[in-house]
């Protein structure tokens, strides 16, 4: 006891005080910004059920009900194995693709005893195209179906309202259509979220792909979202130029040209389920 008092006195004399530690909470409201991942991970024991839809381009006219007649869907489930580690599985109707990912938060933005200005998260994902091979007569390999993504998510919550994130991303495709395309595609994304009121928020993201890596007619992915949070649900409505909802699609296979008005409407609905207790 006396020893503790001495240490306390010495620390106080040198101006060293034990401070509380504060972590930035909900830098983004959900684990996805719009299409891409955010720095957020699920809490331990929480399963997140995600249904996402992307429709055809809005300028397709009334006969296509402004794109609503054409829909792609992804159904996915994420699970927090630790507060800082999440795994997930999903299946997209677009190219009948299965995907899985693991996401680890290395560091949280914090203030107080230890200051750190950013939240840092790493993402690794794999996508498996299950469509029949386009050219069955040649020798095809299972590995040709695979695409891998490595992504680093760096975010800062600047205020209660504004968060910004950047996402250096590498997509590796085992098989590409033409020799002109790169198997490794480097891109860098940027995203934001702005809280409008207690329940509503705006979000957006843009992925810039470095030149000469993709085939003609592929565009950088951009999307603007509107989020509504209710008890246990987050609804995200968005306008963007990508039909796919995983990195493989929106980084390397975005076909719609926003400058021509080719914009897809879409939404994500997420629902959390507590499957396990935790220390509160």
């Amino acid at each position: 006891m006396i020893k503790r008092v001495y240490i306390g006195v010495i620390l106080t004399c040198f101006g060293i005080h034990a401070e509380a530690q504060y972590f930035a909470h909900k830098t983004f409201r959900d684990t996805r910004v719009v299409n891409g991942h955010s720095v957020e991970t699920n809490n331990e024991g929480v399963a997140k059920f995600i249904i996402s839809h992307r429709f055809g381009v809005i300028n397709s006219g009334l006969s296509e009900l402004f794109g609503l007649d054409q829909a792609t869907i992804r159904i996915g489930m994420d699970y927090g194995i630790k507060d800082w580690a999440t795994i997930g599985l999903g299946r997209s109707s677009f190219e009948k693709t299965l995907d899985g990912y693991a996401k680890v938060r290395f560091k949280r933005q914090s203030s107080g005893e230890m200051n750190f200005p950013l939240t840092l998260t790493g993402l690794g994902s794999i996508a498996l195209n299950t469509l029949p091979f386009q050219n069955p007569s040649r020798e095809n390999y299972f590995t040709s179906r695979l695409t891998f993504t490595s992504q680093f998510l760096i975010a800062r919550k600047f205020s209660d309202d504004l968060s910004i994130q950047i996402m250096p991303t590498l997509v590796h495709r085992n098989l590409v259509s033409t020799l002109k395309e790169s198997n490794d595609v480097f891109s860098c994304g940027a995203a934001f979220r702005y809280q409008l009121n207690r329940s509503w928020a705006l979000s957006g993201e843009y992925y810039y792909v470095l030149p000469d890596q993709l085939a003609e007619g592929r565009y950088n992915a951009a999307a603007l979202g509107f989020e509504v949070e209710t008890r246990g649900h987050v609804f995200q409505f968005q306008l963007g130029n990508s039909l796919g909802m995983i990195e493989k699609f929106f980084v390397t296979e975005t076909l719609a040209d926003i400058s021509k008005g080719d914009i897809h409407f879409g939404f994500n609905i997420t629902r959390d389920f507590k499957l396990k207790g935790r220390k509160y």
Partner: protein
Amino acid sequence: MKSLIAILLIVFLYPLLAWVSSSNSLFEAFGPETPLMQVNASLGLAIPSHYVNRADPKKVRIGGQLISEGRADTPQGKSNYISRFYACTSCHNTVREEEDISKVDSELRLDYAIEHQLPYLQASTFWGIVNRVAWYNGDYIKKYGDLVIAANKSLEESIQLCAQECSQGRELEAWEMEAMLHYLATLELKVGDLALSKEEINQLNDGSASNQNKLNLIASKYLPRSPATFAEPPNDKNRGYGMKGNVERGKAIYELGCQHCHKEDGVSDLVLDDAKKTFKWLRNNISADSQNSIYEIIRHGTYAEYGHREYMPLYTQEKMSDQQVEDLRFYIQEMAY
């Protein structure tokens, strides 16, 4: 001469010694640390079945862990969580909550919570819970119906009700119940916890007084039954309960009460932080006829629903007075500007 001094000493000192000895006989017999249950037993009161006379330290540790964390480290490894949604301490403190434990006074309870920075919660503290003779009293029958009948008369049954209904968890296994009772026994009231005056101590030591009178005196010094009165929101929520709120006390209620569960990564999905937008949202919903209104949520709480078992228990009048709800409202309004 020596004889004279001896006689004088006897004459003058005997009454003094007699008075001192009588006024402290209770404490000499039992001491301030003597468990109240032991005193009651010596006066002829039956020891209840839930009471553990000599708590086993190992079981106490496990019981404490079950209560604060929802599961325990056992020789077989970590046990399963009792509830996915709550720990006992989400709603119960485990320490003294009031200076004067002989009456209900929510203002004094809040004073004590502010002074000691205690969570200001809906449920009764576990401190002294083994000394109660009834649980889930008063209006709790309105919420839980017949389930309360057994729980009202038995601490074990009330723990099971709490585990399964209130915390939406599972039935406790026998070893868990045993460990909890061992832990709760360490939180029992002691003689020194009662505010006994000198006269009352004399009364207890009065050989001519009946044991029943002594037991009645002890029972008047704490609440063997914690009353529970369900209250209603005001008829006109814009007007509220018609009292002026105290912003400072409202701040304490927000921080020690609301944010106990509605903190970041807390029990509730709904985070009530200190952002202006949060206060504006709360303020704008004050008059709403939904659970987003502080009046509705405090007085009615919510119920567990299929697919969303987490809910908020209501605050009874005893745990949060109308005045305190107004204090909270004034704080929210102040912070929303």
